[in-house]
C-alpha cells in the first residue's frame, strides 16, 4: 500500500505491506534508525516517536495507520546536523545515558512533556517516562537531565534579573 508520511517536516512516500509497523518503516524504508527496536510489542518504549506531537510507540502502529500524520523522530529534534537540542545536550551533561538504547525514546517522551509543561515536578517527569525502560542508568540521571533542560529552557528568554544575572 502506498502511504505518505510527514516525517520531520518532509513528506515521505513509501510502499509498504499493511503488516509493516511504523517502526520498521522508519528504520528500513527511511533509514531513520534512531527509533530503536527493543521488544516490538509495546513494553519497552525504545521505539517512541511523536505522532502529531504526542509520544507513541511506533511498534504498536502500522505505517498504513500513520498515513498523512505528522511524525517526529529523534533525528528531527536538533536544529541542524551535528547540533543538539537543549534537552539532548542536558542528557550529555548529566550523564543521562550509558548504552544509549533507551535514549531516543526517553528524549522524545521528555521533549513532549517540556512542550506541554515548562516546569515539571520530579513526579511529572517520572510519569512522562514511566513507559520507557532503561537497563543502565537507574533513571536518576535521566530525571536530572530533564530538570536541567527545563531550567535552561525557562531561562532562555528570561530577562537578566530573572535569570539571576546568568547569561
Amino acid at each position: 500500500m502506498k502511504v505518505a508520511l510527514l516525517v520531520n517536516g518532509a513528506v515521505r512516500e513509501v510502499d509498504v505491506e499493511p503488516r509493516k509497523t511504523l517502526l520498521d518503516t522508519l528504520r528500513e524504508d527511511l533509514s531513520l534508525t534512531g527509533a530503536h527496536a527493543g521488544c516490538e510489542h509495546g513494553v519497552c518504549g525504545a521505539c517512541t516517536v511523536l505522532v502529531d506531537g504526542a509520544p507513541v510507540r511506533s511498534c504498536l502502529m502500522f505505517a498504513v495507520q500513520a498515513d498523512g500524520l505528522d511524525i517526529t523522530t529523534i533525528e528531527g529534534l536538533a536544529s541542524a546536523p551535528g547540533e543538539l537540542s537543549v534537552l539532548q545536550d542536558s542528557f550529555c551533561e548529566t550523564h543521562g545515558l550509558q548504552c544509549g538504547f533507551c535514549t531516543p525514546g526517553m528524549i522524545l517522551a521528555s521533549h513532549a512533556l517540556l512542550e506541554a509543561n515548562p516546569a515539571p515536578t520530579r513526579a511529572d517527569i517520572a510519569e512522562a517516562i514511566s513507559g520507557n525502560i532503561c537497563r543502565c542508568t537507574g533513571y536518576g540521571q535521566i530525571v536530572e537531565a530533564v530538570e536541567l533542560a527545563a531550567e535552561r529552557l525557562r531561562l532562555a528568554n528570561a530577562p537578566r534579573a530573572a535569570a539571576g544575572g546568568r547569561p
Partner: protein
Amino acid sequence: MKPAEFAYVRPASVAEACAVLASNPDARVVAGGQTLVPMLAMRLARPSILVDILRLPELAGIAEEPGTLVIGATTRQVEAERSSLVASRLPLLAAALPWVGHPPTRNRGTVGGSLANADPSAEIPLVAVALEAEIVTEDEGGRFAMPADDFFIGPMLTAAPEAGLLTQVRFPVWSEPCVGVGFHEVSARRSDFAFVSAAAQVALDPDGRCTRIALGIGGVGDRPVRLDVAGLVGTRVEGDRVAQAVEAAAAVLEPTSDLHASAAYRRRVAILLGARAIGDAVADAQEKGAGR
C-alpha cells in the same frame, strides 16, 4: 515479533465497517491498537483483514445528554483524561484513567478499545461495571445497547456481535450535590496489569449520610465485578461497618491464582482496597460538600 500477513481497510462509515466485518468472518476491528497490535506481533491473533475505525468521525467525542455522559468508542484515553466534562460529570473515570497504561499508550489507546478487549484487570471496564454504564454496539442488523455487566463475559470475551463493533459507552451521571470517588490498585509496577483494583463512588446528603454508593473490583477474576454494598446507604459510612460490608459483599468474588498472586491474597486485598476506595470517596464527597 512480526505480525502475519493481513489486508487493511479504512472504511468511511460505521455501516461500511459493518459490511466488511459481515463478509469477512475472521476480520478484526482496530482503533488505537494498543491491545491488538501486541497480540498480532506475538501471532496470538491472525486476522485476514484489519478494519481500522480510528478515523471515523461519528465514533469520536464526548457528549452530554440528560443524566448521561456519552463517550464515543474511538475517543482517545488521553482526551477523556483531559476532558473537563469527564472531570466534572464522571470523576470516577477521571480518577481511573491515569492508571491505564502509560502516557504513550493513552495517546493512542481508545476508551472503546479498552472495553472491547475486556482485559479482566483493565480500569475502564471496571468503572463501566461499577457505575452500571451501558455499552452500545452496532452491526448490519442495527444498534444494540446492553448493561456493561452483561457485556463482559470473561477474559478478552464480550457479548459484542460477531460481525459488529462497539460504538459508544453511556455512563450515568450522578447529579447529587456531594459526590466523591476513590480508586486504588495493586500491581507489580505502576501501570502494569492490576492484581486487584477497586473503584468507589459515593453520594452524601447534607448531613453526611450516604444516599447512593457504587463499588467495583477488578483484576481478581475473569471480569470486573460490581459489589453490592447498598447496606451502607442511610448510614455515615465510617468505622468497621465499611470493611464488614465490603467483606460480606466480596463473597461473590471468584478470585484466580497465578504466578503473581494467590486467590487468597487477591480476596484479602480486594476487601482492603474496596474499603479504602470507599473511605477516599467519602472524604472526597465531604470535601466537596465543605467547599460549597
